[in-house]
């Protein structure tokens, strides 16, 4: 068995994200084998076959009626999937989370609800284990930061280490919380992983926010999943080295077909990043 020189064999994960609205995948994916471009179950299975290390399904449904289909979607997706499966979007209570686990998810991702009710993290972790709780953090840089308890000038706040602010409600509402401090608190409350999305980079294909990812990875001992900005294999290499990420999540980079994932993993492997390949 061949291992890398430093004997490190735990691989970095490449996570495929499916955005689902009322049970249908949005942002159409161009898999050549695909019969139904909007079916989450089939897309998830194809991603898994193509080499994705994990699947995240994010429910972006705006209406309550549409959201009722989520557990059906999760159940249909989970029964075809034998790699880790995370579901997020609109999970507000322990019973919401329990329904998602019952439908077959391995982890839930909570975002706004964790900010509104931080004890929810511990409640879900207490019942389903920390490994089942991903706290998603949407963070934004470059804005004049006004911390709730801060009295000093903007420059002073930067000096004390505030890098980015947490936003909730799909990035529409600022919280005044320091993303690094919130990540640490989420860990202390029982989160098993942090899913960090850079709002500045999301959708830009300019690359991940590596300094912010590294700051959060350095502040917690639980795995950090970087999200937002993936556009090339080089971006993944950067986030796994300079960004110190344990996993990287992307949707759009996989939209070019199943070969994109294989090529990405082979490129990263050649660059010395431990990858699960072939799988």
């Amino acid at each position, binding site marked *: *068995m*061949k*291992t890398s020189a430093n*004997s*490190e*064999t*735990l*691989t*970095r*994960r490449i996570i495929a994200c499916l955005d689902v609205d009322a049970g249908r995948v949005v942002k159409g994916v161009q898999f050549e084998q695909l019969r139904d471009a909007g079916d989450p179950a089939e897309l998830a299975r194809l991603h*898994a076959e193509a080499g994705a*290390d994990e699947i995240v399904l994010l429910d972006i449904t705006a209406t309550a009626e549409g959201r009722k289909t989520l557990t059906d979607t999760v159940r249909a997706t*989970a*029964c075809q999937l*034998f*790699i*880790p499966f995370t579901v997020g979007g609109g999970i507000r209570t322990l019973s919401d989370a329990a329904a998602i*686990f*019952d439908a*077959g*998810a*391995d982890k839930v991702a909570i975002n706004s609800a964790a900010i509104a009710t931080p004890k929810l993290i511990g409640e879900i972790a207490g019942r*389903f*284990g*920390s*490994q*089942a709780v991903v706290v998603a953090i949407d963070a934004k840089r470059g804005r004049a930061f006004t911390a709730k308890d801060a009295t000093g000038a903007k420059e002073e706040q930067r000096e004390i280490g505030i890098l980015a602010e947490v936003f909730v409600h799909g990035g529409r509402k600022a919280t005044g919380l320091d993303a690094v401090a919130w990540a640490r608190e989420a860990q202390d409350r029982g989160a*098993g*992983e942090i899913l960090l999305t850079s709002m500045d980079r999301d959708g830009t294909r300019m690359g991940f926010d590596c300094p912010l990812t590294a700051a959060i990875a350095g502040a917690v*001992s*639980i*795995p950090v999943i970087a999200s937002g900005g993936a556009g090339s294999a080089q971006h993944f290499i950067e986030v796994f080295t300079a960004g110190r990420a*344990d*996993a990287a999540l992307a949707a759009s980079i996989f939209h070019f077909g199943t070969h994109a994932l294989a090529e990405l993993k082979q490129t990263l492997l050649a660059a010395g990043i431990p990858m*699960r390949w072939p*799988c």
Partner: protein
Amino acid sequence: MIAIVDYGAGNISSVAKAFAHLGAPAQITAEPQIVAAAEKIVVPGVGHFQRCESLNRHLRPAILAAIERGIPFLGICVGMQWLFEGSTESPETPGAALFPGLCERFPATVKSPHVGWNRIELTGSSRLLREVPDGAFVYYTHSYRAPLVEHTVAVTQYGGRFSAVVERGNIFGVQFHPEKSGDAGLRILENFRQL
């Protein structure tokens, strides 16, 4: 029928789902009588070792008697750790002591928990790992790990080597999650089913 033992240790539906996919009849149960009558027993589990208190209180005699009769037993993650004497995670909670030694936390030199896909290195002959390639990737999520023992048949490297799979006669334990480990994991569950 395979009894999947429910003792309140996290989400176990994925194990049932994997057996359903393989076409193997399986039932999630917390009833000692059903466990005692099963053809095979699986104890899954994630989370804190203290959860094994509930296993010890209600199901230990049924499980140990079944193992004694030669019924194949598979412990997954905490279910595997329970096969050892105990864990420093919850020193007052005894394990089944079918393998020697205590489970311990990862050293501070590596990030903990150990989460993600890592390789198994085959170190002994194994019925459970039949046709599973050396170096296969499997999915882990845990903070404590079992020591290397005489009956360790596969190891994983993370903060040193630890027992990935133990096997002695009809007793099997895997630290990773075969139900989440893609084709290699399904192969392992199929091997268990065919025993």
